């Protein structure tokens, strides 16, 4: 009977992909992404890009909330910072820096600025926890949006009316179609997941988990709360900044309303539905949050032929169906879809000895 994966050395236990099934899944996923880039239609590419952008941000939230146990309701602010940094950088240095280099500088810069903002926003985490921290981070969201909307900065941010975003150019490769953007988003999405998976094999990642499980115990064991809580916020904000940079490059225009509380809640919802503190959790969460409404809409569309009169009656039902789905997940699988997938895969792995 199979009871687990044999690991004959510490190095084997340390591997990012610690069993052949995971490796196979990883390579199959890469193939699937390549296949999508080549053959999927524009609509599928659009939805996949939306999922990819959200995935990176949810992974960021997962680092701070899922792994470190610090609740944040303000991560949309970091996405906004990333998006606006890229746009402002392109405006400020147009003509000075060669086009082909702009994105290569702008993306790391967006990540760096978001990291900095993340550290500042993370400071209250040293004094408060739980709901109090949630409220403190929430205010960060409002402050950032408030600043973006100010007329005084409108030259750079576009103010209330938003601002057109640049088209990325990677060393002469103009990413002016959604399909080309998909390649960039998918690549960065995969790298992000691998980086986070790797992070939790390191001392830093394990310190995060220790803080989540009992922060004062962690401190007694020699983990500096100041350092690691801020590091967690910084990494988390950096990923959201990356997501924001891609957001700006992907959409032709950014508006402040796209980064309001609704986005922060969406990020947290995706993380909870997918599975907190699990690498694949954000992937499952984003699948549910982005794809399920689209699937429901498509099913309703096919069922009704898209007739306006019927759509009018069914539109609220779509919302109810989606809401119900989330509630059912939380009721019957509070550990998220990731846990459900784990159980299914484990049963498959040990079949016929276990269900």
């Amino acid at each position, binding site marked *: 009977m199979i009871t687990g994966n044999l690991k004959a050395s510490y190095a084997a236990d340390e591997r990012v992909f610690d069993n052949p099934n995971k490796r196979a899944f990883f390579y199959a996923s890469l193939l699937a992404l390549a296949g999508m880039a080549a053959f999927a*239609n*524009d*609509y*599928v590419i*659009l*939805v996949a890009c*939306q999922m990819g952008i959200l995935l990176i941000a949810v992974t960021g939230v997962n680092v701070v909330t899922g792994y470190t146990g610090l609740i944040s309701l303000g991560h949309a602010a970091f996405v906004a910072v990333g998006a606006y940094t890229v746009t402002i950088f392109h405006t400020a240095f147009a003509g000075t820096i060669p086009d082909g280099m702009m994105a290569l500088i702008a993306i790391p810069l967006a990540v760096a600025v978001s990291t900095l903002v993340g550290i500042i926003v993370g400071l209250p985490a040293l004094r408060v926890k739980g709901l109090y921290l949630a409220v403190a981070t929430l205010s960060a969201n409002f402050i950032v949006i408030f600043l973006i909307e100010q007329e005084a900065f409108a030259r750079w941010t576009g103010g*209330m*009316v*938003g601002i*057109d975003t640049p088209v990325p150019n990677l060393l002469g490769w103009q990413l002016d179609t959604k399909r080309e953007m998909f390649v960039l988003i998918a690549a960065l999405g995969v790298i992000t997941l691998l980086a986070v998976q790797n992070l939790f094999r390191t001392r830093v990642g394990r310190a995060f988990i220790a803080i989540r499980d009992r922060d004062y115990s962690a401190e007694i064991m020699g983990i500096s709360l100041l350092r690691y809580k801020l590091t967690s916020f910084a990494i988390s904000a950096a990923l959201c900044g990356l997501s924001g940079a891609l957001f700006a490059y992907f*959409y*032709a*225009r950014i*508006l402040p*309303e*796209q980064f309001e509380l609704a986005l922060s809640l969406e990020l947290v919802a995706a993380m909870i539905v997918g599975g907190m503190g699990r690498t694949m959790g954000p992937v499952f969460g984003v699948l549910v949050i982005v794809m399920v409404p*689209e699937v429901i*809409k*498509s099913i309703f*569309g096919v069922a009704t*032929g*898209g*007739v*306006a*009169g019927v*759509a*009018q009656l069914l*539109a*609220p039902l*779509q*919302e109810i169906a989606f809401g119900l789905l989330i509630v059912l997940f939380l009721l019957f699988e509070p550990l998220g879809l990731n846990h459900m997938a784990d159980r299914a895969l484990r049963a498959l792995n040990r079949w016929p000895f276990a269900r």
Partner: protein
Amino acid sequence: MTLTRRSFLATGAAASAAIGTPMIVKAQPSEYVFGSSLPMTGPFATAGQLVAPALKMFEDLANEDGGIGGVPIRTTAEDSGYVPQNALANYQRALATEENLVYYYGDSTGFMKLVAPELKGENARLMGSTSFASELANPEKNPYQYLAGPSYEDQFDILLQNIANQGGSTVAFIYSNTEFGRDPLERGRARAEELGIEVVLEESTKAQGADVPTHVTKLAQSNAEYCILQGYVTGVWPQLIGGARQFGLPTKFMGTFWGMEKLIADRVTAESGPFLDGYLGVMPYRYSYDAENAPRYARYAEYQKTAFAGTPLETYMPTWGLQSLCAMELGLMALRQVHDEGKELTAENAAEALASIQDWDSGGFFGVPVSMEGNKIGTGRVYEYSAETNLFTPASDWFTV
């Protein structure tokens, strides 16, 4: 039978002809699709829910008239929840799934701005929307997008012109702290100065749940003769007017298109009393009950009586529905023109045909012949609400700005 080179070629040619023939026949599609995103849930669900039935009416009546060159049209609608990204996904889905999508109707300024740079080559479609944002009426930047009426800036022009005609000398601008609310402010200031009207107050409020007493107090301090309200749909504007009346202010209030819906004014009057009496505002279209010498409105009314019996639409088409109908009629007219000229129904050809619309007798929407100038129709007039009759009635002639 032995397969020789000759028989292979002959069979191949016959097969190609057999497969190819339906393709040639298919050149004339079985239908054309008019897609749309509507806010059927979310903050503007009231508007979306009222507009959706109007699309079916548009489809039926257009098909009675032969669709486009004898090919019927079909309208589709999807919910956006008033989220620009959702509407963008709806548009992309329509492009991917509807082979003969020739027109699209968007539901917000945000969506129109988001989608504008995407409208290139095969992804471009002629596109109307619920928005009157001034920025959209720009043929150079947004060649395929148009406004089925005056922009908010034009609407401010019309209101300020009306104030000047009435001998008014001071005005206050109260607006929601949104893109929608701020849209015409700069133009309004400049136009007021040109007309010799002093802007004595510019007050920003929340779009929902505004602190009404504070705003009313500031209005009282400014002592404005007129007050233009901008950037509201169902809320805030009635409360501001109610607050001002309770305060005893004689200020005359004015609104723009989205603050001019009779259903809202009637509901406020029924629930809170007649304080909206005398409320003025600019409206690009005649109200649906103003159907004299309006054959199109008469036809709509006839359809509504049977198709929408038992609903509020049986006897009245909301202004929001009229806007959508007008936008789609303009799009249909442009596409029919393209078809009649024997051209392909591309966004480029349709936009060119749309831009050529001059002195259009709309049969109801506008009281005067109108023209498409700079991807908009800068015509409207001022209406006044009577709490006694529950009707908006004309308070000025038609202005074209």
